[in-house]
């Protein structure tokens, strides 16, 4: 059966949707369809992909308006007479066709102070219990597909990339702050530089996460709470003053 695909073709300066018709087979995902278009109609159609199994987070795009991994979006999710519209992530500048410049994300990651482990006792192995690592293991499932970054209002609609690192890196910060071995303190930076206050908890990021990470509830809100405890709780304020904890 022939199916119609409207695919964004072009560069940052100019572009348009082009329509392609191809035959589908049972079990195909959107990325398969794109590959078929690439082989049969347009050899130079630009698309990022790697593992084709939802593990690497390369093939993010917007499919009928939803940010999704194209390798995990089955064609039978759509009605048979639906035409499928595919465009690049809106939050990042287009390089070509479905490929966007996501280098901003790598810059955010680099700003985050690295993991700082406690010193091992007498050269013995670190001891951490499963129940204590489980909550950060959830955050470490992140495959960096940036779908959460794409859908975040602060980054997408308000374009405040200079004030908020986005859900992906809030989750990464949470994975460091809650790491049982970590001795770093990133709370002042989370408030001042990484913009924890910018998030208004609409949970759109959680909705699109292909790894089903509870980004907002388990990651961002606990960080917001830690910021509040440090900076806005009067009793904690006195405690922090007494023990010399950074509250700037």
């Amino acid at each position, binding site marked *: 059966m022939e199916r119609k695909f409207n695919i964004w073709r072009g560069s940052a300066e100019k572009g348009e949707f082009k329509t392609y018709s191809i035959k589908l087979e049972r079990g195909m995902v959107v990325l398969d369809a794109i590959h078929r278009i690439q082989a049969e109609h347009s*050899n130079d159609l630009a698309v990022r992909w790697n593992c084709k199994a939802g593990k690497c987070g390369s093939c993010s795009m917007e499919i009928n308006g939803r940010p999704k991994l194209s390798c995990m979006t089955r064609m039978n999710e759509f009605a048979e007479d639906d035409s499928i519209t595919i465009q690049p992530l809106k939050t990042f500048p287009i390089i070509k066709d479905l490929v966007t410049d996501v280098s901003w994300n790598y810059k955010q990651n680099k700003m985050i102070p690295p993991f700082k482990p406690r010193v091992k006792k007498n050269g013995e192995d670190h001891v951490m219990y499963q129940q204590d690592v489980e909550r950060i293991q959830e955050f470490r499932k992140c495959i960096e597909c940036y779908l959460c970054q794409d859908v975040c209002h602060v980054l997408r609609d308000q374009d405040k990339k200079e004030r908020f690192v986005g859900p992906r890196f809030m989750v990464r910060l949470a994975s460091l702050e809650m790491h049982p071995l970590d001795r770093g303190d990133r709370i002042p930076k989370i408030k001042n530089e990484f913009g924890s206050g910018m998030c208004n908890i609409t949970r759109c990021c959680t909705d699109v996460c292909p790894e089903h990470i509870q980004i907002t509830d388990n990651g961002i809100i606990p960080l917001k709470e830690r910021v509040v405890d440090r900076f806005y709780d009067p009793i904690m304020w006195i405690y922090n003053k007494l023990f010399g904890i950074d509250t700037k």
Partner: protein
Amino acid sequence: MDYSDIQTIEHDVLVVGAGGAGIRAAIECASKGLSTGIISKSLLGKAHTVMAEGGIAASLGNVDSRDNWKIHFRDTMRGGKFLNQWRMAELHAKQAPDRVRELEEWGAVFDRTDKGLINQRNFGGHRYPRLAHVGDRTGLEIIRTLQDFCVHHGISTHMECTGLDIILDGGKVSGLLAYWRETGRFVLFKAKAIILATGGGGKAWKVTSNSWEYTGDGLGMAYRAGAELMDMEFTQFHPTGMVWPPSVKGILVTEGVRGDGGVLLNSEGERFMFNYIPEKFASETADTEEEASRWLDGDREARRPPELLTRDVVARAIKKEVEAGRGSPNGGAFLDIASRRPAEFIKKKLPSMYHQFKELAEIDITEQPMEVGPTLHYFMGGIRVNSNSQQTNVPGLFACGECAAGMHGANRLGGNSLSDLLVFGKLAGDGATDYINSLSGQLKCSNEEVGKIIKGATDILNRENGKNPYLVHEKLQNIMQTFVSIVRTGEELEAGLNKLQELNADIKKISVPASAQYNPGWNEALDLKNLIVTAEAVTRAALIRQESRGAHTRLDFVGEQEEGLEYNIVIKRTDSGMSAEKVRREDPPKELADIGFASLAELEGGGIGA
């Protein structure tokens, strides 16, 4: 033409490939004070390491204290059918535990034992629970840990940058010409040493667990620079890839499913692996379902279930069942964990398998069996290196990880790949550092060399009419899938070789008349130059090895031949084309041979190799 105005970036050492081996090598070089650059075809953190599921093998002894490096070494040699480089297997077994502990020190969060130590799971061919893991996403944990560590250590990462060819000056490495995917522009990296960490060439087959990046780039570049390839006939078919739907055929189903209790069944519901236990492993393998169940329940006296035999054995068994008409509806075998473990256990230990089947095949693995079949997964062979320094026969050229040969011999054990990446990544970094420190004099990248490489790449864009790169690639995959498959015959290999040579002519006629900017068609055409070298090398080596050993099975030469242990097959470039010849192996050091050939009882009793 004058190419002196081409973009030029200078490093002491350039690492090609940003998977586990590449990043680990770069970290080592940077920590020794070298100016270090790393290029990768994809974005940082997307390399194939991310796909590794089951775990990283290291004899930490956290779950079973009887484990130690000697048992790991012996398992590795037996798995590799004793064709491994002895010294490499020794270094690997000895150093793997430190590499795992180091990852934890850099922020990795492995699953824990009850005592709070790094947990370890069972895997095929490993005597004891040995694989440190994070559910079934161990590779992701490792690559993310390395990635986040490396960005704070002064390493320049050049993403979506693909190497074309290595440049030599007086026989020594002096640089590498590459191009940016985004713009299609060329860039010259001047470097005193190059470490290749480019992975394998699984994309030469149709059914493979490998991504588009796996086109044997390092193998092709090293070969053209005069380096030797070795053990290329040993290509691992992982026994359990998805077989349905067609578009995901080949995607990996982790061995962890079997490690955690999954069993293989044929269409008659028979647990057929009991019929395929090789003599060599009979004394260490359960021969009844009852004993296998006891082992799963933690009985330390029980022997391991036959589903955990080495990958070559299991892959061939599935193939035989299918050929005998006892396959699953889509031409595989059933892998059942649903009836063996509770749903919660499966979701906890194998979360990504649960989602993979649920979302791609609409199968709930906590209720239904999976359908699985062999998929091309890994290259044991690759670039021939010195076991200690990881240097090739070309001064200044190093290789590590899957693109290097020697560590795994004729067959790799699951879990030994992630540890290989880290152990030999580090050692390649050490080797490159030593080499650079002993180097004197200036190295040049000649204008002529640069021009030749650029012309070879731009010709594809300038040709008006020619072959479609995607269709040429498909043809290549069909040839390898048909003629150089999981079981081989001399006749088929000859036919395959002829077809590859015909295809070589097609590759020279590919045209992609469009701009070079982010053009996957052009990128594919350039990759094919390496993939065809890789495919030809595998085929030639497979033709010469007239025996069946490990992952290399010849229907016309059944079983291992004693003589087969006396040589490795080495491929190199000559004026008259590709040559493949048998190169005599050195005798193993006595203390290693004692350990490798010891019985378990002798080894565990102490005294041997002490």
